[in-house]
């Protein structure tokens, strides 16, 4: 069953007074429980697409459907994890994680119970009372993921959440992310420019073209879990993604 569907999404921006067509008709069907990775050349509109899917930006054409119903505003059924995390520096880790629950008016005891669960899952329990600027980039990224998961969204949208991490932390989070997905059975759309990362995480990898972009190819990856960075068997998938991506990256304007 299609959980999230993008139909012919078009988006223009203005650049030096000229209209710039960023998204040129993006079609994508994300099935319930899919883990879809989006890859594409820099500036092709992956972030823009996620923001539109989250309802934070309006497309100039096309439609986003959630459970076959068109959506045109933002809400906690699709939570976006920002590349820089966008954690609130004035709140402690726990209060960051509980933010959405507080907004939803959930009573304190219940809030704590939920946040405890995800703080533990993300190994943040010890830092629940710290402020976010006291923590490393990897921890911040985990807080951002915990803050999204507590909302129990129908779809989790993630914009290069691991881009700023060192290799070791990233490898750890790649395994954790797969376990979270298996445990929670969430539908996830995950943007990355890292091909091995896409092959490890996705059960599907969608390749964007250069601007004005659309999705040129969806590669299914059937491989055991949890997948590790050193798994040799993934390299043929990586080759396939790369061969689709390379001509797009070369189209420079």
């Amino acid at each position, binding site marked *: 069953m299609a959980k999230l569907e993008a139909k012919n999404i078009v988006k223009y921006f203005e650049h030096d007074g000229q209209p710039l067509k960023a998204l040129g008709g993006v079609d994508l069907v994300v099935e319930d429980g899919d883990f879809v990775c989006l890859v594409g050349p820099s500036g092709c509109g992956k972030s823009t697409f996620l923001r539109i899917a989250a309802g934070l930006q309006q497309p100039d054409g096309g439609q986003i459907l959630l459970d076959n119903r068109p959506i045109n505003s*933002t809400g906690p059924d699709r939570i*976006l994890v*920002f590349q820089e995390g*966008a954690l*609130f*520096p*004035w709140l402690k880790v726990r209060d960051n994680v509980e*933010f959405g629950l507080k*907004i939803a008016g959930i009573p304190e005891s219940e809030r704590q119970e939920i946040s405890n669960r995800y703080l533990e899952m993300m190994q943040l329990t010890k830092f629940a009372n710290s*402020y976010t600027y006291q923590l490393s980039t990897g921890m911040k990224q985990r807080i951002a993921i915990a803050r999204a998961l507590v909302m129990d969204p129908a779809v989790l949208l993630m914009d290069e959440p691991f881009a700023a991490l060192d290799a070791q932390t990233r490898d750890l989070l790649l395994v954790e992310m797969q376990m979270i997905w298996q445990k929670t059975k969430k539908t996830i759309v995950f943007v990355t420019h890292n091909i091995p990362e896409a092959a490890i995480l996705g059960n599907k990898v969608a390749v964007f073209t250069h601007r004005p972009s659309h999705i040129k190819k969806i590669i299914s990856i059937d491989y055991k879990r949890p997948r590790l960075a050193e798994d040799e068997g993934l390299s043929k998938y990586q080759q396939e993604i790369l061969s689709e991506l390379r001509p797009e990256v070369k189209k420079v304007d």
Partner: protein
Amino acid sequence: MVNVTAKRIAFYVGIVLIWQALDAANLWADNVFPSPYEVGEDLWYGALDGTLWYGIGTSLWRLVAGLGIAIAGGIVLGIFMARVPTVNQTIGSIVLGLQSIPSVAWAPLAIVWFGLTDAGIIFVTVAGALFAVTINTYTGVKSINPDFIAAAQNMGARGTQLISRVLIPAAFPYMISGFKQGWAFAWRGVIGAELLFSFLGLGFLLNVGRQLNDVSQVIAMMLVIMLIGILIDGFIFKRLEDKVMSRWGLR
């Protein structure tokens, strides 16, 4: 730290000594240039008969009332200016101009509208502080990382929840600067208005000193006004600022 305190004490003692020496040299008549002793005596009698405390109390309550209204109003106005383009294009365009009016310049209007009352003096105080708070709040809200607002809206925050849980805390470091500036303007506004209204308070006592040709009282009141300024700045606003800066990870 000890070193700084020692330097400061030496500096103030030095000033008093030079002042005493100038007085002893008898360059000016005593009713024009009083000695530190006479000024101290004036303060002492004022403290004993209660006029000093009553004056301080009156000025401080006017300050608190005026600054309180200015802070509340400035936050509301600043947020609306930052979030509603029409408000910014209309009211926003005159706020900078209003900010340039010295607060005492509002006094004649206040006298006409409110008479020689507390309300008139508080009006002058509000007019002095309101726009500094407004402008800083506006700048603060404008400089919020747009991802903070997007993330909050994505998690369901709207309207007053968005304002109280994201806009105000995110803009708070800027708003603190507004409060600091606002307080300084408000204090000048209170004293200036009291001089003109001649209706109780430290500014009034200062004026009485002048009318009686009692220069030592004039200087005594100026010292009290300055001392209160230093205390409020150091004990309230400096601390608040330090706390906010470290709490927000800006230091």
